[in-house]
């Protein structure tokens, strides 16, 4: 019997799944157009699924020509789990946020506070509102609360 050929779409599909997952965190999260809705990553996952389906068909319909009867289901299962984790993180976890009903609202005065800046210097909100920037009195202050990098 002739040596069966490597079923490359299975491995390419699994690799593309890893790329689809990791590229969001490392690349596409940096651009609002690819972050707010992860369409690039979903397309990559779709491409990976197509490769895996092709590989699985080869493995089971032409087992005399192609390898992958064991690797196929294993790689497909791992890929499905990675894709599921991605969808959970983006579409479920991302929307689990506190209500913040008592947060300052439009028309209310933002409570003053004092915190340390990146150089360890104490800075208060009233300082930010009063201290001139580029020689001009500030017209206001934008406060951005963010999750941080822990």
């Amino acid at each position, binding site marked *: 019997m002739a040596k069966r050929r490597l079923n490359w779409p299975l491995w390419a599909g699994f690799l593309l799944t890893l790329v689809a997952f990791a590229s969001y965190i490392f690349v596409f*999260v940096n651009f*609002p157009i690819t*972050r*707010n809705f*992860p369409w690039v990553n979903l397309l990559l996952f779709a491409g990976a699924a197509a490769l895996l389906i092709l590989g699985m068909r080869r493995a089971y319909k032409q087992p005399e020509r192609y390898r992958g009867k064991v690797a196929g289901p294993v790689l497909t299962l791992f890929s499905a789990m990675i894709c599921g984790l991605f969808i959970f993180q*983006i579409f479920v976890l*991302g*929307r689990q*946020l*506190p209500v*913040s*009903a*008592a*947060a*300052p*609202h*439009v*028309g*209310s*005065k*933002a*409570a*003053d*506070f004092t*915190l*340390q*800046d*990146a*150089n*360890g210097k104490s*800075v208060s*909100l*009233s300082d*930010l*509102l009063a201290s001139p920037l580029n020689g001009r*009195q*500030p*017209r*206001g*202050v*934008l*406060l*951005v*609360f*963010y*999750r*941080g*990098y*822990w």
Partner: protein
Amino acid sequence: MAAISVDPPDVSRNLATKRGYTYTILSDPKAEVIRRYDLLHAGAGEGGQDIARPAEFLLDSRGIVRWMNLTEDFWVRATPEQLLEATKQIE
């Protein structure tokens, strides 16, 4: 502009140096101000640390909130265009 998180000053300093940020970055490691502003996302950080939920507030020179954004999805933030549009409120 000031950005506020639970990151300690040295983490903020590294971030500012690495990315070239020149605005004020404030550290609220015990989430005291974050809690006072009702923006605490309990246990959402690495290892269950309490962190801030993303939120943006534009204050006028008297400290009155003129525009705000509380996202319902932490992957979705206010865009620079939205923020610039909002600054028209304090012209």
